[in-house]
């Protein structure tokens, strides 16, 4: 089969403790190997940076909410129109690009894996249909559990065995990867026009609290020994003063550990959950408090949720927050009701550098990334397309790598960004190794895929990004524009041993895999039977479809990659 060797590049591979060494990388049959024969294709990476392929752990790239966004934003689809070529399909859109554009643009940035962050089981089939239309990259997704009736019923009955069985079954039903929790309890309340405002509020019809939902699901997650921690979007997103709720949530898991080499809790898009103040007039950043907490405690990991000025399409399972957004900005709004599994909302927004709240939020994301000391526990994200589209990652990378760029940028945004955050006093500049951890090595490890993803050692998938940067020569403080440009257009992106991007242009479009976690095998029969009995009843009484038509069938995963839970 095809062999390839990458020579002379500056290899950054933090999982193997390699920081810019000139080193050959050998590829055979889509994997990285010890050596290759003389006839191997040679890629000369002299004067270039060699990274593992990018790994986005939190993004929204497939599912019915994407299509809701596309339908309500025809004006977005008129942006970035690219006609088809001999090898690429037509592309449209900026915040809600079409599926082809998502695959091509991730590859152009040197990204080779992306995790869809919210799959309602009921809509999972659609998510997988879209996955199969996203070319090049490997995909996977997190399944929503935070507002499911069966979860809350199990908790009310204090039946952790049945809950564990349900989580395993739900993962299989949706062909999902891990447990996502969005505004636990709050979206269920939203079905009655209400919300929860703290982690100890009671969810009306179930007599459980958000705190219980999270701790029980975490318990189930650890019993199943899933590769990823519970992935939580805490209550009160986007409310001034919400940092206290977030800290309380984090404290629930203080001191807890996992059998795996990872934290037990992932707090996502933390920027949106770290506001001080009591209203949008006096809102301020509490990122310093949040970052101190992360620095002092090992039980959690976080991701940024960086804001990008310009157009965004917010989409989340957090129905009530989207209603509030739509009212505040007089924006378009769709509301989704996912029957017994929560809901969702989609609202297009425009983030302006001249609006104080937006400028503060823009500064807060960077503040978080710079204040958290351990890059292995923080991921670079924009919560695409909530904070802004993923195509802007190079802008974020350049901001984090150059205090000069931040200074220049701060001068052009609302002055409260400097007064209500601590960004101006931060002069840290991420190293190439730290950036690598935050965008690939660390994210792959947080998702439990560090054996095959996020590194360049023997046995890893041959997912590699080569950029036109020579870390030995570039002055990142001054030449931030060159860094941004280089990250925008990878010199080469290699996916499973195939050159998919050369000089920023797509050269091949192989189909990536869909990764999912099978946790069903360890479930005791008794718990399985009890849970199935519950579900039969729920389908009979409440669901709009029958159980036989609910689960995603094998046919929907044309390129499946099954991972067994439990092992490590």
């Amino acid at each position, binding site marked *: 089969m095809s062999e390839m060797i990458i020579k002379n590049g500056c290899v950054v591979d933090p999982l193997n403790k390699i920081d810019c060494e000139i080193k050959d990388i050998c590829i055979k049959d889509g994997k990285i190997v010890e050596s290759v024969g003389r006839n191997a294709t040679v890629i000369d990476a002299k004067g270039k940076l060699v990274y593992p392929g990018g790994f986005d752990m939190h993004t929204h790239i497939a599912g019915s909410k994407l299509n809701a966004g596309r339908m309500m934003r*025809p004006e977005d689809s008129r942006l970035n129109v690219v006609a088809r070529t001999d090898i690429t399909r037509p592309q449209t859109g900026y915040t809600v690009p079409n599926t082809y554009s998502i695959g091509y643009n991730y590859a152009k940035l040197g990204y080779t894996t992306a995790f869809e962050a919210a799959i309602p089981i009921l809509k999972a089939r659609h998510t997988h249909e879209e996955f199969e239309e996203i070319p090049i990259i490997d995909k996977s997704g997190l399944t929503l559990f935070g507002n499911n009736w069966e979860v809350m019923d199990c908790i009310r009955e204090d039946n952790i065995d049945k809950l564990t069985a349900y989580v395993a079954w739900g993962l299989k039903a949706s062909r999902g990867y891990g447990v996502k929790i969005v505004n636990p309890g709050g979206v269920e309340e939203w079905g009655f026009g209400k919300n929860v405002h703290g982690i100890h509020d009671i969810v009306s019809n179930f007599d459980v609290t958000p705190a219980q939902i999270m701790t029980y699901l975490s318990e189930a997650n650890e019993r199943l020994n899933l590769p990823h921690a519970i992935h939580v979007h805490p209550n009160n997103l986007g409310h001034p003063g919400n940092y206290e709720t977030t800290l309380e949530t984090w404290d629930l898991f203080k001191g807890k550990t996992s059998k795996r080499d990872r934290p037990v809790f992932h707090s996502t898009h933390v920027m949106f959950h770290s506001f001080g103040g009591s209203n949008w007039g006096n809102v301020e950043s509490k990122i310093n408090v949040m970052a101190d907490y992360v620095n002092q405690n090992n039980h959690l990991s976080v991701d940024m949720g960086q804001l990008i000025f310009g157009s965004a399409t917010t989409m989340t399972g957090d129905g009530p927050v989207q209603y509030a957004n739509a009212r505040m900005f007089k924006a378009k709004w769709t509301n989704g009701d996912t029957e017994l599994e929560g809901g969702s909302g989609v609202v297009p927004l425009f983030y302006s550098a001249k609006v104080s709240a937006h400028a503060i939020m823009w500064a807060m994301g960077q503040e978080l990334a710079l204040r958290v000391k351990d890059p292995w526990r923080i991921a670079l994200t924009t919560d695409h397309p909530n904070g802004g589209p993923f195509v802007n990652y190079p802008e974020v990378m350049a901001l984090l790598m150059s205090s000069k760029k931040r200074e220049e940028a701060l001068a052009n945004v609302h002055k409260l960004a400097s007064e209500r955050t601590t960004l101006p006093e931060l002069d840290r500049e991420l190293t190439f190794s730290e950036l690598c951890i935050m965008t690939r090595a660390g994210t792959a490890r947080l998702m439990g895929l560090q054996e095959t993803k996020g590194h360049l050692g023997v046995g890893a998938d041959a997912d590699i990004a080569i950029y036109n940067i020579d870390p030995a020569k570039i002055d990142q403080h001054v030449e931030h524009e060159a860094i941004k440009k280089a990250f925008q257009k990878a010199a080469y992106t290699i996916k499973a041993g195939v050159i998919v991007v050369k000089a920023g242009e797509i050269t091949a479009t192989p189909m990536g895999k869909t990764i999912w976690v099978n946790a069903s095998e360890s479930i005791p029969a008794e718990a399985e039977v009890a849970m199935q009995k519950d579900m039969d009843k729920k389908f009979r009484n409440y669901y709009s479809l029958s159980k036989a038509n609910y689960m995603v069938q094998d046919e929907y995963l044309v390129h499946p990659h099954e991972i067994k839970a439990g092992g490590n």
Partner: protein
Amino acid sequence: MRLRQEVTEMQEVTLTPKIAVKIPVDGENIKPDTFAGKSAAEIKALDAWNGNTKMTLSDFFDVTVNGSAAPGETKIIIEGNVTRIKRIGEGMTAGSIEIRGDVDMHVGNNMRGGSIVVKGYADGWAGREMKGGELIIEGNAGHYVGSGYRGESCGMRGGTITVNGNAADFVGEHLCGGIITIKGNTGIMPGISNNGGTIIIEGNTTMPGAEMQKGTIVIKGTVAEMIPVYREAGVEEYEGVSYRKFTGDVVIGGKGVLLVK
């Protein structure tokens, strides 16, 4: 002749339609910004998509060019009907276009400066999302004059559109600025979702100003039907004539002004 042109520094480009087209042609290259400084041969070679087929302007037009100048001093004359050629003058910033006949949809869309005169009929979306300049339609106009295309929150933001004939429905939907004058009548719902522009209708219309947030709509003719979302607020003079003043749309807390006789 040559000497005179150099002194006046004008460029005049005449396009004469050669064939009747059935499938719409994308004519976004027909504008002074693209034509300025180009020879007839260069202009003929410009792209013009005909449906899904890439063709050139020479497939549809005979082209003559007099002189060579910057966009601001470039005049384009289209001799005849171009009823299946869309997007003429899209995004133009300067110069002028005169269409001596009827034109297809989206004429002058996203225009930023300069002027377009249509001697005949302009189909839907004339001057949509226009930001500056002047668009004059001497005949009638189709639907959505000066509007925002599907999904846009802002239609026209600046400049002026004048229609000497009648205009069809939804004049100035999502208007955010600029002035639209319709000398004839209009169809239903002119100024729907007006967010800060001015519409003057000299003829008759019906159901003006639904969802108006800001801006002004003046109707000099008769209004067949009012939508019951306006509050009467006395009398106001406009160009020396007094009108009944209404404000609304009250349903969305709008502060738009509707002047009706």
